């Protein structure tokens, strides 16, 4: 007790010290909570590869900032394929998504979901659904795809809404003979996911992936360039 009073006596302006102490304490708390909050926000699930955005969606970081999680696109969808991410879903909470394997985009020509968006997170500039980029279909299962086994399942080719253009059969020759391989034209594919939905396997051999994941990105090294 005696120590305390003598310490306080040394302080020229005890009131000033009190105020400063309070300010620094609050600054400290604010800094710690900001860091913690930032860490929590960064660790919230980013969008999983299986989760696709509605047509016209801005690139993911911008979409995440522009989308105000209102769900107007969800209600505008006449086929009810869109959901708003719940807490436990693999996308930022409240953002709209669809899962191609469950219910693919039907590619309405008037794009009602993008029209409904109040903020432009689904870009109003996308007016032609065939120019939409929800992802790109990639035939990932070269060992499971029935066409690779010499059958002509070709269901993915036949259900494609941009039939004959986005996916077509290309013959390749190997030791089993001539195989008809479903081949995606990445410039035509909108990533609607109809092929993934209808793949007859238990897990689809063809799936829609975000473009950079599905196609890779050209490298900066000289070997990767041409």
């Amino acid at each position: 007790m005696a120590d305390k009073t003598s310490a306080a006596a040394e302080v020229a302006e005890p009131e000033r010290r009190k105020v400063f102490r309070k300010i620094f304490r609050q600054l400290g708390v604010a800094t710690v909570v900001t860091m913690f909050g930032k860490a929590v926000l960064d660790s919230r699930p980013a969008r999983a590869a299986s989760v696709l955005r509605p047509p016209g969606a801005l690139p993911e970081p911008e979409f995440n900032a522009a989308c105000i999680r209102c769900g107007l696109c969800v209600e505008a969808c006449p086929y009810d394929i869109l959901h708003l991410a719940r807490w436990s879903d693999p996308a930022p909470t409240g953002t709209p998504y669809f899962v191609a394997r469950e219910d693919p985009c039907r590619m309405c020509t008037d794009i009602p979901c993008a029209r409904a968006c109040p903020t432009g997170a689904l870009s109003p500039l996308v007016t032609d659904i065939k120019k939409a980029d929800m992802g790109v279909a990639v035939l990932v299962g070269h060992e499971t795809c029935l066409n690779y086994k010499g059958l002509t399942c070709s269901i993915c080719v036949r259900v494609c809404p941009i039939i004959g253009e986005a996916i077509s059969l290309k013959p390749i020759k190997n030791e089993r003979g001539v195989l008809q391989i479903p081949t995606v034209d990445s410039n035509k594919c909108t990533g609607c996911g109809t092929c993934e939905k209808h793949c007859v396997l238990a897990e689809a051999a063809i799936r829609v992936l975000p473009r950079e994941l599905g196609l890779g990105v050209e490298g900066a090294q000289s070997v990767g360039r041409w």
Partner: protein
Amino acid sequence: MRQLQAMFFRNRWLFSRRIIQLLIIAAFTVELPAGGYLAQGNLSSSVWFGIGLTDPYIWLQSLLAGAPLGKAALFGVAIVAVFYLLLGGRIYCSWVCPINLVTDLSYWVRQKLNIKSNFTLSKNIRVTILMLSLLLSLLSGTLAWEAINPITLFQRELMWGSVAGATVLASIFLFDVLVTRRGWCGHVCPVGAFYSELGREGRLRVKATQVGACGGCAKCIKVCPEPHVLAPVIAKKATFVTSGDCTRCGACLDQCSTGALAMRLSFKKQGKFKGIPVVGGH
């Protein structure tokens, strides 16, 4: 019959509020016979009869996160902001927000179980959380409060229920019952803090009406979710409740049996206080 009428009269503000709150929830969730809903979207942005409304707080987070101004949303933001600016910001809290149903239920349970324990929290916490949510939106490029916002979460749960979401709502309920009286809405929620700041000058106010009408029973203070806003009026230092924290829930008016309080629209400039009505002794 009389009794029933009296009961309704004693709870007129409460019942009006419940009706409005439930109608708003129903507008989003109950399908019309003709198909579709009366209101589309949710409380962050909605369309009513073709008119878009957008929550200014969520829009502000989006702006800070780096989004361009959505033109359609901007118009909706202006409508909502002007409404609360003119009338009083926290009208949102007690008349619109669905979480109010949860926390009012908590308060009711708390009263019924006679829970007295109260973890004291500062009212400034919500202002701090508001500032932090804006700062974090700026830093992280995402809508910080929307990662947890129970208001839109509530509406999503009604559509697509989930265990995680129900747990969040349950924890708010229990927080208010067991930890702090009026804990969530009165201390934590930054949405309330935002609307409180926005509607600081709101003109719909609780007014002390007649000279000598107050009997000094203090029932109004007991029931008020933000008791500090009534204090100056009860202490006869002001004729109007002027704090932005007042939610205009009308609980004080339901309690007041003497007609000493009333809800009034006053566009008059807040004049100098000229002294109040002396109150009869008790």
